């Protein structure tokens, strides 16, 4: 699938149909109620089954960051955490980084507009592309076989697929995580979030939080957090 910009891909949810970035804007402006938003479905729609094949590492991680930010926002509202008076310094920093990136990228967007104008200005001219009638072709320049060997060496040295191999594919799905939480809750009425994710990679931890939020949305569990950044207790209803 060739979607140039993952933020412009369409997501299709009961609540909302349209480009992903528009949904983000609506959420941030509180025009879409975060309580109503099925995060698990959204993550599935945004990342899809084979995110590692559709997007490169940088893009995937960026999508994960955006989704994690939504999860965090939703968590805050679900847990009734005070929002206004004490902004999370990490979130503020992440957003500052976003601004910094937008500012760094702005010149290239302006340059693209400049290029478009240039193309417009020269679009009308036509070149005479009549090939020169060639006599017998002159001898081509000589090549050196050692150049061939060097070119091959570069490839034999290079990893043929540099993209995502070093990351290892996170093979964990939302249904699997939901199942894991339910299993944990089957054993006792409440479980500690930290205990569930202990030793898991960061991405899996983030997705487990999303799974917990999903269960809360479905009314299966209640979440509570005694102190900000503290452990979250997941209680079966």
């Amino acid at each position, binding site marked *: 699938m*060739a979607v*140039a*910009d*993952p*933020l412009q891909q369409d997501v299709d949810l009961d609540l909302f149909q349209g480009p992903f970035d528009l949904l983000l*804007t609506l959420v*941030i*402006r*509180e025009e879409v109620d975060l309580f109503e938003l099925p995060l698990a479905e959204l993550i599935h729609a945004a990342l899809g089954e084979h995110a590692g094949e*559709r*997007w*490169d*590492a*940088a*893009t995937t991680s*960026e999508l994960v960051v955006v989704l994690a930010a939504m999860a965090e926002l939703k968590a805050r509202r679900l847990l009734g955490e005070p929002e206004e008076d004490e*902004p999370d310094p990490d*979130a*503020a920093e992440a*957003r*500052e980084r*976003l*601004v910094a*990136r*937008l*500012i*760094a*990228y*702005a*010149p*290239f*967007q*302006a*340059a*693209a*507009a*400049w*290029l*478009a104008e*240039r*193309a417009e*200005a*020269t*679009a*009308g*001219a*036509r*070149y*005479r*592309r*009549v*090939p*020169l009638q060639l006599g017998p072709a002159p001898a081509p320049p000589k090549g050196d076989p050692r150049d061939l060997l060097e070119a091959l060496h*570069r*490839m034999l*040295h*290079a*990893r*043929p697929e*540099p993209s995502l191999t070093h990351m290892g594919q996170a093979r964990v799905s939302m249904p699997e995580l939901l199942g894991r939480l339910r299993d944990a809750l089957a054993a006792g009425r409440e479980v500690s979030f930290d205990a569930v994710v202990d030793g898991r990679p960061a991405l899996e931890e983030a997705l487990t939080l999303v799974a917990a939020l999903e269960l809360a949305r479905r009314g299966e569990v209640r979440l509570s957090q005694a102190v900000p950044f503290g452990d979250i207790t997941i209680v079966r209803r």
Partner: protein
Amino acid sequence: MTETARKIEALLFLSPEPLPLDILADLVEADSDVTQSAIDELVERHSEAGGLEITEIAGGFALRTRADLEDVCDRLRRRPPEDRLSPAALETLAVVAYLEPVSRPDIGRLRGVAVDSTVANLVDRGLLEEAGRIASTGAMRYRTTRAFQERFGLRDGGDLPPIERFELSGPQADELRARLVEAGHLLQAPTGLREVPSPVAADDE
């Protein structure tokens, strides 16, 4: 018209590619000053009053029809409709033009999105080409092509305005920040930054 100018007019008429100054000088057996002033003579000869013009493009000089005659020219030679460049393609070209040679991951990092298919598409269209690998990782780097320079009317690879010209001014950056805060993307302006009132209608297209 000087004899050198006559020769150059003939050469530019025949050549299907733009001809660099040194090659022209070589062909007409003159030094580059004489060649350059013959070119100047031709620029004057092919003024707006005529149907042709001398242009410096893609690393050389070329004779071409004037842009205002587009319609009649296309009646002779039906042109396939110009494949339009998407904003994503244009921005990717801008990044490569300023940073070349540059690898796909680097372009993606700057643009904030995956650029694999955009880059592949621009290579297919002849606007980007491979420019060797990074020794340490083997990642392929890319640069713009002559076709790119021709399409955008550039004299050569370096014929771009300095990137600083496009950088946001302090007030523009503050305005961007203010807009993001307003839209709820930012919690607050970081402490320490001046509280500059946003300037009236900074051009941000």
